């Protein structure tokens, strides 16, 4: 499957969707006014990837900030991956947050409470 790479902008994160390796990466800040416009192609890609996924899919999320409309789109990505997990594929979420960043830590906990996926919280030193 085609690998998608989107470089970061002041309002959108760096994104890498690598179907060959089964790795999804989202890194930076996600604060666009229109999050659906940004995330829809990514969600569509994951949908398509779900048709022939790797045995293990890893999603690395390392966000500085995200706005409310992005929060729903991120949840939609997790929900797509949850479908794979339910079919018996391995899925691993790695949620990175900076040391002392309570808000990002709690955001990870929120997703962990909503979705049913193996979820690892990874603290990064400042």
């Amino acid at each position: 499957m085609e690998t998608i790479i989107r470089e970061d902008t002041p309002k959108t994160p760096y994104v890498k969707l690598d179907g060959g390796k089964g790795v999804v990466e989202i890194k930076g800040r996600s604060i666009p006014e229109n999050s659906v416009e940004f995330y829809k192609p990514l969600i569509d890609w994951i949908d398509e990837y779900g048709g022939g996924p790797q045995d293990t899919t890893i999603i690395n999320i390392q966000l500085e900030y995200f706005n409310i409309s992005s929060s729903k789109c991120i949840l939609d990505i997790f929900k797509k991956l949850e479908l794979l997990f339910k079919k018996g594929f391995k899925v691993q979420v790695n949620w990175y947050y900076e040391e002392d960043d309570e808000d990002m830590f709690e955001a990870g906990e929120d997703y962990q409470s909503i979705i049913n996926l193996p979820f690892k919280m990874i603290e990064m030193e400042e």
Partner: protein
Amino acid sequence: MQDIKMGFNLEEWYAHKLLGEIIYKYTGSISPEMITRALETVEDSPLLSKERLQTRKKVYNVFVECIQNLYHHVDAPPAGLSAGGSPNFGIVCLVHDGSFFRVTTGNFILKSKVNFIKDRIEQLNSLSDEEVRMLYRDILGNETISDKGGGGLGMLDIVRKTGNKLEYFLYPYDGEHIFFSLDVYIS
């Protein structure tokens, strides 16, 4: 600005909100480009750069949410407003006010929305920190959220991140419009 109606003086309100050390102030049309510029100004602020990383992040994050909330929900102002006639007219400032950072937004809303806004803010202000967190998870996990945020999640996120109550005033302006003033304090 010389907009005085029904005892509400927009110029005086704005001057009062600018008391303190000003990091950012803006009056006019709220657009995605204007928001990008505003965020750059806040990010480069020497006043904020003295703060701990986590304080800077929180101020930035709350500022983003407040200004985008304004962008998505503002109503057209009354005709003939000398402060500006753009349909997306709004006011936003970020001020270092004593031991707090304060984000203030001001915008006109239609009179018909007053009860909705009032009820929503009063409800949020009545919740404990734990209730705010549970409600946030509940809305995020269960409700359909439009691209505007919706479901009150924007305001809820602001309350959650600041841990402070929202301070607001609704000033009658004319028969149709109310001026909605919102202060968010970040400690």
